[in-house]
């Protein structure tokens, strides 16, 4: 979830709760104030009426142009004594002036004249409809809410975008960052303390990564290089011994075995060096390579080497796949994939090579899927691994693809292992 979205969502929730509470209080306060004013005017009006009544002046007519209505009736002493002398209440009353029921505020007063008679005066004034005021308040609040939400959204978009510029620049930098790659300095053109600290941290972490990466790279390279000379020395000494005439056949056989092991070691060392060099980008020269030609050549070569296996290659080339890549490495890629298919096929199996403009795939029949997460790791070997394979051929193929804008994927479908290379 983007930060902006998150901020807006939280603000929206908070505003909803806040505005609801505010609307409720506002409603109560409004109603209270209106009641207060109405009650005051009712008291004044009733005061006038009571004074008139007590002084024997004629009471005003009911229909006197105001909406006020009043009733006076005589009540018994017991009735008067049994209830409070002044009450306010809401009631639906029939307004004779308007000939309809309306919600009204009613003041009921009980008073006594000089002859000790009790009267009850009800004064009613039509007042606001609660529902009306609630509805209108609700609409106003919704309107206000939408307006506030839009302004908050707009403001937060602007504020976040403006203030997060340094963060965005750093994120862009991190996206492009790769250990060992030459990069512009970490963007830290900001006076915000947190961002400055973040930039410093990124800079330190990146330089630590770079150093580690370089050291590791150098170590692997040096270790492999340093091994070359002793390996040469060992291997050559064995060759010398094998040439010597006083060797018994038994000794020779043992020496041949040692020599084989040593050649395996030499091959492994050379392959590791190759892998390091591919990953260090030490094959910068590229040219457009037609992979269909490479497949045809390699197929010819492998069919000769593996003729006794009876494996057949079915070339299904819809269109040649041409990609900008180092030619030497393209050959290695094609041969590693084809060789892998040959080595892990039973006799008489059919390997399928499918190719179109966007990529190619090499499929060979198999019994069960391989571990797709591990298969491109160095030294991964399936249970049926062939003796003598270094377990590094697919790692090299993968490394070549990654370095030249290709993707290498593995899938198991229809009892076939499928290795696909596609343009990224």
């Amino acid at each position, binding site marked *: 979830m983007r930060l902006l979205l998150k901020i807006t969502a939280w603000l929206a929730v908070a505003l909803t709760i806040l505005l609801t509470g505010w609307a409720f209080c506002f409603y109560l306060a409004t109603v209270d104030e209106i009641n207060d004013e109405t009650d005051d005017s009712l008291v004044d009006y009733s005061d006038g009426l009571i004074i008139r009544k007590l002084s024997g002046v004629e009471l005003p007519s009911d229909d006197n142009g105001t909406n006020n209505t009043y009733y006076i009736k005589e009540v018994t002493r017991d009735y008067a004594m049994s209830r409070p002398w002044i009450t306010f209440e809401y009631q639906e009353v029939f307004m004779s002036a308007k000939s309809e029921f309306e919600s009204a505020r009613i003041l009921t007063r009980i008073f006594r004249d000089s002859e000790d008679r009790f009267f009850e005066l009800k004064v009613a004034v039509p007042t606001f409809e609660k529902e009306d005021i609630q509805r209108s308040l609700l609409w106003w609040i919704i309107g206000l809410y939408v307006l506030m939400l839009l302004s908050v959204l707009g403001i937060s978009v602007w504020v976040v975008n403006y203030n997060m510029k340094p963060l965005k620049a750093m994120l862009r930098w991190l996206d492009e960052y790769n250990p060992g790659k030459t990069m512009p300095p970490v963007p830290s053109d900001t006076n915000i303390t947190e961002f400055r600290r973040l930039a410093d941290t990124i800079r330190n972490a990146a330089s630590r990564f770079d150093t580690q990466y370089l050291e590791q790279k150098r170590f692997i390279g040096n270790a492999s*290089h*340093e091994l*070359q*000379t*002793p*390996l*040469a*020395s060992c*291997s*050559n*000494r064995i*060759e*010398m011994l*094998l*040439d010597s005439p006083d060797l018994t*056949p038994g000794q*020779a*056989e043992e020496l*041949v075995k040692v*020599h*084989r092991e040593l*050649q*395996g070691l*030499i*091959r492994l060392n*050379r392959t590791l*060096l190759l892998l390091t*060099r591919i990953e260090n980008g*030490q094959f910068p020269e590229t040219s457009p390579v037609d992979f269909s030609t490479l497949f045809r050549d390699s197929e010819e*070569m*492998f069919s*000769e*080497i*593996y*003729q*006794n296996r009876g494996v057949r290659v079915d070339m299904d080339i819809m269109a040649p796949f041409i990609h900008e890549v180092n030619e030497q490495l393209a050959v290695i890629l094609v*041969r590693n994939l084809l*060789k892998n298919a040959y080595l892990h096929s039973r006799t008489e199996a059919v390997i399928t090579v499918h190719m179109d403009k966007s990529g190619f795939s090499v499929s060979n029949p198999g019994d069960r899927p391989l571990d797709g997460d591990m298969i491109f790791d160095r030294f991964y070997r399936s249970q049926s691994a*062939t*003796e*003598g*394979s270094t377990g590094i051929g697919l790692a090299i193929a993968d490394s070549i693809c990654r370095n030249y804008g290709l993707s290498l994927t593995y899938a198991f479908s229809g009892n076939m292992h499928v290795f696909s290379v596609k343009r990224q």
Partner: protein
Amino acid sequence: MKILIVEDDVSLMEVMAAALRKDGYIVECASGFHEAVQKLGIYSYDCILLDIMLPGGSGLDLLSMVRKPATNTNVIIISAKDSIDDKVAGLELGADDYLAKPFHLAELSARIRSVARRSRRDGDFSLRCGNVVMEPEAGRVYIDGRQVELLKKEFSILEYFMHRPGHMVDKAVLAEAIWGDHIDQADDFSFLYAQMKNLRRKLQDMGADIEIKAVYGFGYRLTIPDDK
């Protein structure tokens, strides 16, 4: 032929020297930059086997030193760095060949013979072993003066052996040289055996006095009548 080995690893230097002496060369050794400079100042050599990474200086400096007076000395760079950049730098400075460590003794011997053959003045680049004569550039083979028809692979195999007479050749190395880098030790070599069988039969049928012998399941060796 006099050879100078410049190599800082004494063990490797020893075994190289022993092998080359066995091939009949006169061999001298230098294990460091300064020792090499001294020897080059006093003596002259037909061929120098030069390691690039030396204590006390770079082998490339030594190379340009050898090349300054226009000498006929052949230089083969022997380096642990198997990168194209190094190869190009070495060859541009005038090295005759570049051999990456680790290498086979048979390969070393072949490279020395090859640079020596190329620098011969008489323009005769043919290979001779016993009564077999090969013209690699023309792709022709003669046994006792009669031309022999060989298939492409058979020709390459014979050429490989004629560059390394008397040396044991690992069958995996041979297969790699002829078929490419993608041969593994564990592969079965029936494809190679088939070619070898045909080649040996053809040599025998045409009365060649050289023979390619199988050795202990390790590989083969080309034997010349004098060696027998």
